[in-house]
């Protein structure tokens, strides 16, 4: 079964669209015989030979040309390849829908925007009983986080002060999230659902500047020296 390719004016734009299509679905034309129908190009000024050359340059296996006066192709390799099958005219061909290929010039998809990481800044003490929940990203606290208070962040948590309450980071599956505090006296630390209470890390790190991260599903703490 041969594919019928119908170039349309303006040819340059059509060719660009074809290139994009081929980039998206590589291998679509590989080893598939192609019949080029130039009827849509009849009104355009483009030289049919150049049109065919441009297609061949894209490794299309052209086995036939139709919809064009064969005289125009005299002297080219495609002369005589015309499929003048009588009765073809008016009988609709079965079109194969090329995925997204129909639009003549699909707008260039904008390059993916760099992932925005919003952050929340709190420059006052977080008191006992207060709960700061920020699922969108990182939380920075300038001041202490009291016993009985909690910071819950989608991203990392930075505390410039004593952390006495709870810090829950990486709420949205963020195994990369970390917790930093200038003085550790926390009740509970958690990253990506993995939590530890103060019993776990003992007295060694108490009162020290500490960072907390996830290392292969293991919550790790280390003093920031």
């Amino acid at each position, binding site marked *: 079964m041969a594919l019928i390719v119908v170039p349309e004016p303006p040819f340059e734009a059509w060719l660009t669209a074809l290139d994009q299509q081929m980039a998206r679905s590589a291998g679509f034309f590989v080893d598939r015989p192609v019949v080029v129908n130039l009827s849509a190009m009849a009104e355009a000024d483009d030289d049919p030979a150049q049109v065919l050359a441009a297609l061949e340059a894209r490794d299309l296996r052209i086995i036939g040309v139709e919809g064009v006066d064969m005289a125009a192709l005299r002297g080219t390799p495609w002369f005589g390849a015309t499929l003048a099958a009588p009765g073809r005219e008016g009988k609709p061909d079965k079109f194969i829908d090329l995925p997204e290929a129909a639009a003549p010039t699909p707008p260039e998809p904008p390059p993916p925007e760099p992932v925005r990481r919003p952050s929340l800044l709190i420059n*006052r*003490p977080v*008191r*006992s*009983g*207060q709960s700061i929940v920020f699922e969108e990203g990182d939380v920075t606290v300038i*001041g*202490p986080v*009291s*016993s*009985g*208070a909690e910071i819950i962040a989608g991203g990392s948590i930075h505390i410039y002060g*004593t952390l*006495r309450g709870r810090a829950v980071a990486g709420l949205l599956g963020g195994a990369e999230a970390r917790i930093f505090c200038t003085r550790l006296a926390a009740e509970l630390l958690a990253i990506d659902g993995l939590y530890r209470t103060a019993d776990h890390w003992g007295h060694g790190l108490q009162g020290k500047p500490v960072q907390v991260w996830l290392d292969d599903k293991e919550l790790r703490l280390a003093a920031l020296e």
Partner: protein
Amino acid sequence: MSKVLVVTSGKGGVGKTTSSAALGAALAQAGKNVVVVDFDVGLRNLDLIMGAERRVVFDLVNVVQGDAKLAQALIRDKRVETLSLLPASQTRDKDALTPEGVERVIDELREKFDWIVCDSPAGIERGATLAMRHADMAVVVTNPEVSSVRDSDRIIGLLDSKTARAEAGETIEKHLLLTRYDATRAARGEMLKVEDVLEILAIPLLGIIPDSEDVLKASNVGCPVTLHNPLSGPARAYAEAARRLLGETIAVTMPVEKKSLMSRWFGRSVA
């Protein structure tokens, strides 16, 4: 310009009522027109501490609900004439207070007095939130002990979010009053040190009230400690705290253990 001061703590039994009475009396002794309002509806104590329990006819709930006029419920102190008391009701509970009624009473009190001292009940529920609702400033009463400090921290958070001032985007002045402080026990590590409490609560220190039997004695005779024994340690500390509330800058005196090591040991073995 009148000031509404709430005396609050979150935790019970730390000395809110004693401090309300002592600060109210000290402010009145300094010549200000002061009313002390008991918000602890159902568990009223301020009338006892102020020695007015036999003069209560109408109370805060009556005024809030419109059953009595403010002037009928106010009790003027017999010792300091610029000091008044608005007692709580003992037979009702906190649900008898309505936000609108409390606001109306506070507005009315603002017209009559320089200082309105609201003695908050313990807890963080209706009674406590209504007591702090219209405050311009707060005295947070804290004992040097971890549970009291954490509860105070909670209350400070509420002061910063649930008061009328906070909701209007304004700040509410907060002061720490450390009560029942025993320098000896703090030195031995049995109590939190002043700097530990200040580090956690991060609000300015209004005063340190030493743990003293003078406070209990004054309570039992129904007299604010600043009136009962003005030369005692707690009375002087409260008087200084009141002067700081009035805007004076006085260095906070740290209570120190005056006895020698030997006499302290002998003293303890006798006690």
